[in-house]
């Protein structure tokens, strides 16, 4: 399969970025951080431009025409990507830990934006809340906790281990070797991220949550002239066609009345609305009602359903991991208390009494 971008050019860009990164890392004496950062961002930016130019080929690798060949690049993605990469560079190059953490929050935010671009709204906000809001704040706490309070004349001084990076060249070589290999390998044969296709895939999910449609209908007053359906029947109907549900007219008059409400009429096909004044629809007629847009399955529904129904084990393992982490943190944070001999004996005696009592 063909690579989306020419590997040579990609490696060239990464090499530029690497050189920039080496320069950007903090050094004791002469530290051209600014130039380095600029070069690094330039390198990554060039790579992104390269990807943008080459990302939409006329034909796919299997010879078929690419349906998205005419699409223009999405400028938001490139902006957020550059912000993310640039702030990530700043995270590793800033000599002061607090600033690193803050720049990391920026990385998180731009990542969340990129989540949004592909419609992962829930995760985008969860990321901001958990990462930026909780984890990074913990980091900030610890940074402040674990940094010696500088004396009056030392304000502005950096600790020695923050001031200089350790073997920047080796680190960059190792890291960028990995990066180049991953980026080079990933560039083969991957095409569009299908957001709209995903929307259609989510549509069938509504059959699993018919109550959502049910509530939307009730809210709009659709049920005023139509027979109410049980949730199971509703789900069956949605399973047949996620976009429309068939309902039976129970009360002619009430149904005609409800059609005057725009919220209801917009869900009905024009043919039904035309038929009502001519007396075409009577009690017992079956009417196909469109599922309202606000009742469609959205990202939150999708994530929730997939998490609970498809991957419950991941959820449980995550719970166990959190529990263990909590226990671990408790053990680590616990202070050792030395009991004296008398206290020990007393404690043992209490224990023995309890055992005796319980038996």
């Amino acid at each position, binding site marked *: 399969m063909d690579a989306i971008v020419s590997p040579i050019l990609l490696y060239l860009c990464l090499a530029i970025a690497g050189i920039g990164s080496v320069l950007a890392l903090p050094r004791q004496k002469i530290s051209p951080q600014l130039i380095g950062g600029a070069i690094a961002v330039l390198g990554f930016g060039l790579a992104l431009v390269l990807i943008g130019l080459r990302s939409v080929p006329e034909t796919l690798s299997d010879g078929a025409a690419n349906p998205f060949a005419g699409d223009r690049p999405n400028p938001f993605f490139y902006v957020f990507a550059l912000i993310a990469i640039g702030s990530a560079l700043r995270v590793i190059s800033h000599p002061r830990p607090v600033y690193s953490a803050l720049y990391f929050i920026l990385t998180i935010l731009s990542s969340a934006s990129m989540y949004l671009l592909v419609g992962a709204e829930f995760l985008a906000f969860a990321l901001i809340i958990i990462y930026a809001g909780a984890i990074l704040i913990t980091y900030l706490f610890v940074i402040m906790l674990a940094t010696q309070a500088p004396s009056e004349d030392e304000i502005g001084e950096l600790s020695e281990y923050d001031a200089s*990076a350790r073997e920047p060249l080796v680190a960059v070589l190792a890291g960028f070797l990995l990066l180049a290999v991953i980026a080079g390998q990933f560039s083969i044969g991957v095409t569009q991220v299908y957001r709209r296709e995903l929307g259609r895939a989510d549509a069938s999910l509504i059959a699993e949550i018919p109550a959502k449609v049910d509530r939307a209908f009730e809210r709009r007053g659709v049920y005023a002239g139509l027979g109410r359906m049980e949730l199971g029947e509703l789900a069956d109907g949605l399973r047949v066609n996620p976009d429309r549900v068939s309902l039976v007219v129970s009360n002619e008059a009430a149904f005609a009345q409800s059609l005057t409400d725009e919220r209801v009429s917009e869900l009905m096909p024009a043919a039904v609305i035309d038929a009502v004044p001519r007396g075409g629809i009577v009690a017992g007629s079956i009417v196909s009602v469109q599922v309202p847009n606000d009742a469609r399955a959205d990202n939150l529904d999708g994530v929730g359903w997939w998490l609970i129904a498809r991957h419950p084990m991941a959820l449980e393992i995550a719970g166990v991991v959190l529990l263990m982490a909590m226990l671990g943190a408790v053990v680590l944070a616990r202070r050792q208390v030395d009991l004296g001999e008398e206290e020990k004996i007393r404690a043992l005696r209490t224990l023995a009494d309890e055992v005796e009592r319980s038996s």
Partner: protein
Amino acid sequence: MTATLLASMGETGIGALTLYHYLFVSAALFGIGVVGFLSRRNLIIMFLCTEMMFQAAGLALIGFGKYHLNHTGEVFVIFVLTIAAAEAALALALVVLLFRRKESLDASDWASLRG
């Protein structure tokens, strides 16, 4: 201008975004995280860099999830978030302990742990 730009993004609303866009950014973040982990001597920054690598993994998972038209990627990002949180809790607790012992956050100070 913004309106034109948005209109030109095509029917999909996301413009010509391929999976590779996400994977490249993910790889870049990961590589930068590795570089930071290898070069910075401050333990906290090192852990921050591991968080960055988690972040890169999350981005890749989101991209793959959307590419395959399902939410598995997102579910696993939740999982990754959990791990990251747990890791942060334990690692930071350890860092605090280590700092109490040596009054320093330099990773090289603990070279004597090699045995």
